[in-house]
C-alpha cells in the first residue's frame, strides 16, 4: 500500500530521534513535522514564540529508506509554493513514549528494537488518519503505535545569515561542562566578549516567592579564553543575552551528538542561531536575544571589512558620497559598505584581515571611556519581546514562513552612529601620536599594533601626569 509518507530507521536512528524529541520537549509540547521529498523536519516553537528548534533529517544519510509521495491536494498547493510537502503536528509526549530510551536496558532483555518503520495514513478514502510507528524487535516482537495527528501549516523561523557577523564555534562538550555551573534558578544567559575572553553569565533578577532556593538574585560567571573556541569572530565588547533554559537544552543535545556548536548573531534584539549537525541530522535553533546595543560603546565590528574588497568598497563610497555626511542605508549591503567607508578613513590599510588578537581589537573600543578592569555585570534589562523573533512576512520567497523584522530603519534608534566616533577617535589618535615621542615607555607598553594604531586606554592627561612625576 502506498502511503503519503513512509520511512524506516535503524535502532540508532530511533535513539537519535528520541534525543531530538527530548530536546524539542524543552521548547514546546507539540512537535511539528514537515516532510519534503528529500528531508524530514521536526520542529518546535515555544509558547512565547521566543525560541524555535528544528531538526532536519536528511533523506539518504539519516534514514534507511524514505519515501514521500505528495497527494493531489499537496501537489496542487505546491504550485503556489516551491515544492510539495506534508505537514502535521503531534504531541511530543506521545512521540516520546513511542521512541523512549530503548537501547540500554532492553538490549539484555532480548526485545531490543532492530528497526523502526513509520508511515502516515493520510489518504482521502481512509477514515482513520494516523501516524503509524512500528518498532520491530528481536524474536519477532512488533510494537505498533497509531498516533493521532493534527494537520497544520508548519512555520519556520527564518534567520538572516548574511547579516550575522558575529560567529563562534566551540566543542559541545566544553559547553557542557560550563552549563553545569549555571544555577537551577537562573533564567538569563549573558554572553560578553572582551580582550580575548568570553564571559558567560547566568543570572536572574526575579526573586521567586515562597521558594527558599532563590532568595537572592543568583549570578554565575564563567570566563573562557577565545582560544578554546574553534572559531571566534565577534565584535569586541558585544553583550548579548539569551535564556539559560534554551541554551542548556541545546548544549545537552549537542553533546549527545558529540559535535561542535556554531553560534551566529548580529546584535542584541536580533535573533541568534545556534546550529550543529551530525549523522544526517542538522539541528538549528533560532533564539530571541536581549540586550542593548550601545552605539557609544561599540563601533562596527571589524569583520565587516572582510566581506568587501577595497576597490569595491571605495566604489561604493564614491557612490554614496552624495549621501554624506549622514548616510541612511536602505538595505543591508549598502549599510555595510557605508560602515566600511567609515572604517577606511580611519585606517591606512584596509585590506588587512580583521584583527584576531584581543589587543588589536581594542582598536574599536570607545576611547572616551575608561576600560573597565573586570567584566562588568550584565546589563539587567530588556524583557523578552515575543514579537522580535517571529513576525508575519510580507514578501515570501518559497514557503510560508515568518521573516525577521527589518531593522535597518531602526538604526538611529539603536544609537549606532559611526560619525561621532570617528571624529572623537581621530582627535585623540592624533594627540596620541604626538604624545608617543615624548613617552616612549608608553609606546612599548602598548601591544604590537600591526600598522594600526591602538587608542589609549587612559586619559592622556593622566599619563602625562604620571611621567611628570618621574
Amino acid at each position, binding site marked *: 500500500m502506498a502511503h503519503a509518507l513512509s520511512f524506516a530507521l535503524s535502532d540508532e536512528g530511533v535513539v537519535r530521534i528520541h534525543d531530538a524529541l527530548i530536546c524539542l520537549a524543552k521548547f514546546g509540547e507539540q512537535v511539528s513535522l514537515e516532510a519534503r521529498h528529500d528531508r524530514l523536519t521536526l520542529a518546535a516553537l515555544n509558547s512565547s514564540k521566543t525560541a524555535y528548534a528544528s531538526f532536519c533529517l536528511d533523506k539518504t544519510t539519516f534514514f534507511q529508506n524514505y519515501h514521500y509521495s505528495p497527494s493531489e491536494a499537496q501537489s496542487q498547493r505546491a504550485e503556489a509554493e516551491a515544492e510539495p510537502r506534508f505537514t502535521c503536528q503531534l504531541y511530543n509526549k506521545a512521540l516520546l513514549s513511542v521512541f523512549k530510551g530503548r537501547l540500554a536496558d532492553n538490549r539484555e532483555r532480548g526485545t531490543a528494537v532492530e528497526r523502526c518503520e513509520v508511515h502516515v495514513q493520510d489518504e482521502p478514502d481512509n477514515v482513520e488518519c494516523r501516524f503509524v510507528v512500528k518498532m520491530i524487535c528481536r*524474536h519477532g516482537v512488533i*510494537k505498533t503505535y497509531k498516533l*493521532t495527528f493534527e494537520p497544520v501549516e508548519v512555520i519556520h523561523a527564518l534567520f538572516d545569515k548574511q547579516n550575522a557577523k558575529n560567529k563562534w564555534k566551540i566543542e559541545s562538550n566544553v559547553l557542557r561542562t560550563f552549563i553545569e555551573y549555571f544555577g537551577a534558578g537562573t533564567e538569563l544567559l549573558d554572553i560578553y566578549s572582551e580582550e580575548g575572553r568570553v564571559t558567560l553569565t547566568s543570572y536572574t533578577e526575579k526573586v521567586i516567592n515562597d521558594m527558599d532556593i532563590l532568595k537572592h538574585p543568583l549570578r554565575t560567571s564563567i570566563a573562557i579564553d577565545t582560544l578554546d573556541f574553534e572559531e571566534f569572530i565577534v565584535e569586541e565588547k558585544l553583550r548579548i543575552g539569551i535564556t539559560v533554559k534554551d541554551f542548556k537544552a541545546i548544549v545537552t543535545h549537542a553533546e549527545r551528538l558529540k559535535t561542535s556548536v556554531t553560534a551566529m548573531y548580529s546584535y542584541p534584539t536580533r535573533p541568534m542561531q545556534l546550529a550543529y549537525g551530525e549523522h544526517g541530522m542538522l539541528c538549528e535553533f533560532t533564539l530571541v536575544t536581549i540586550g542593548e546595543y550601545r552605539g557609544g560603546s561599540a563601533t562596527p565590528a571589524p569583520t565587516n571589512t572582510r566581506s568587501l574588497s577595497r576597490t569595491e568598497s571605495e566604489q561604493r563610497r564614491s557612490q554614496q558620497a552624495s549621501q554624506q555626511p549622514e548616510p541612511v542605508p536602505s538595505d543591508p549591503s549598502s549599510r555595510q559598505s557605508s560602515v566600511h567607508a567609515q572604517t577606511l578613513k580611519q585606517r591606512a590599510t584596509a585590506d588587512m584581515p580583521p584583527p584576531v588578537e584581543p589587543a588589536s581589537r581594542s582598536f574599536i573600543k570607545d576611547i572616551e571611556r575608561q576600560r573597565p578592569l573586570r567584566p562588568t555585570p550584565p546589563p539587567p534589562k530588556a524583557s523578552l519581546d515575543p514579537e522580535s523573533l517571529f513576525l508575519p512576512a510580507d514578501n515570501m520567497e518559497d514557503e510560508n514562513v515568518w521573516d525577521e523584522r527589518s531593522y535597518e530603519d531602526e538604526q538611529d534608534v539603536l544609537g549606532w552612529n559611526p560619525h561621532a566616533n570617528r571624529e572623537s577617535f581621530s582627535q585623540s589618535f592624533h594627540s596620541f601620536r604626538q604624545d608617543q615621542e615624548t613617552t616612549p615607555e608608553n609606546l612599548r607598553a602598548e601591544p604590537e599594533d600591526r600598522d594600526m594604531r591602538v587608542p589609549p586606554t587612559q586619559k592622556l592627561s593622566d599619563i602625562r601626569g604620571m611621567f611628570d612625576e618621574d
Partner: protein
Amino acid sequence: MATDGNAERPLFSAVSNSARQLFLLLRCISFAPKAQVQITQKGLRFSAEESQVMQGLVFLEKSLFTSYTYTKPVNENIDDDDDEDTFPIFQISLSSLLETLQIFGINDIKDRSTNHEASYGANGAFARGGAASAFETRFLGMTGMCRLSYAADGDPLRITLEETGVTTNCELTTFEPEFREEILLQRENLAQKIIMRASWLHDAINELSSTSPSRLTIAASPSAPYFTLSSNGPLGSAMVEFSKDPQLLETFQVPSRTVNTYKYSLIKSASRAMEIASKVSIRCDEQGVLSLQFMIEVEGGGVSFVDFRFVPYLSQDDEGDEEGDTVEDVGSE
C-alpha cells in the same frame, strides 16, 4: 500438650530464615490493602482481591520455612480433615504485614550497590536507623529470622523478627474473612495457554501504558498475528505483537482465536510479580477469565508461584448474559 507457658500450643507457628523472601512474594499482591490468609498444612495462602474482578494469590509453601507446624484445633472434633473450611482463615492488613517484614530494611537488588563496612553490622542498634544497605543480611552472612504464629481463632497474628540480636515483636489484628470464593478458571476449558518470560510481558504492558489506556485487549490466534496485546488512548493506540518464535513463546496452545478485554490498571497492578518472576503462564478459559501465573525463583533454588485472576469486560456478543452484566457493572465503575 500444654507447655509450662500461659497457653496451649499455638494453632500455627512457622520460622523463616528470610523475611526478605516473604516480603518480596507478598509484595506482589499488595494492590489491595487487606489480604485473606488461610493456614493449611501445606503452607500459607495469602489472597487479595479488587472489586471482585481481580484476585491475587500467593502461596507460601511449607518449604519456604525452616520449621512449620500447624496443629489442628483440638477442641473441635471434626473428622473430615480435607475439608478446606476447617483451616483457619482470617484477614489482615497487608500493608502492615509488609511494613513489619521490612522493619530491618529490605532492599531491592538494584539498591544493593553500596557496600558499607561490615563492621557496622556487628552493632545491631544501628540497623534500625535508616542506612539499610549497610546491614544487608546477605553481606553479613546472616538472615533476617522471622517467626510467625497464630495462637487461636480470633487472636492476632504474631510476628517476631530477629536480626543481630535485635528482636521486634509485632501483633497484627486479624479480621473476619470477607470473601471466600475465588474467581474460577475452568482448567478443562482453556482457550489459550501461553508460557513466556515474565519480563517480556512486563515490557509489553509498560509499552502500552504510553497511551494511558483504560482497557487492555489480549488476543491470541492460531495464525498470525499469534499473540497481541493492545490498548487505546486519547493520543492513539498501541499494540504489541509476539511472533510464535519458540524462543519467545515457550508454550503456545491456542486452538482458536480468542479476544478478551480487561481493565488495564488491574493488569498493571500485577507488575511487581512481572518484575521479579522468571516465567509467566498466561491462561484463559472459554469465558475469558484470565489467569496469570508467575513463577518466581526463590533464594535457595526453589520456586514459588504467584497467581492472578482477572474477569474480562463483557464483549459485545455476550451482552444480556446474566453473569456478564454483573461483570460489566463492576468493570465500568
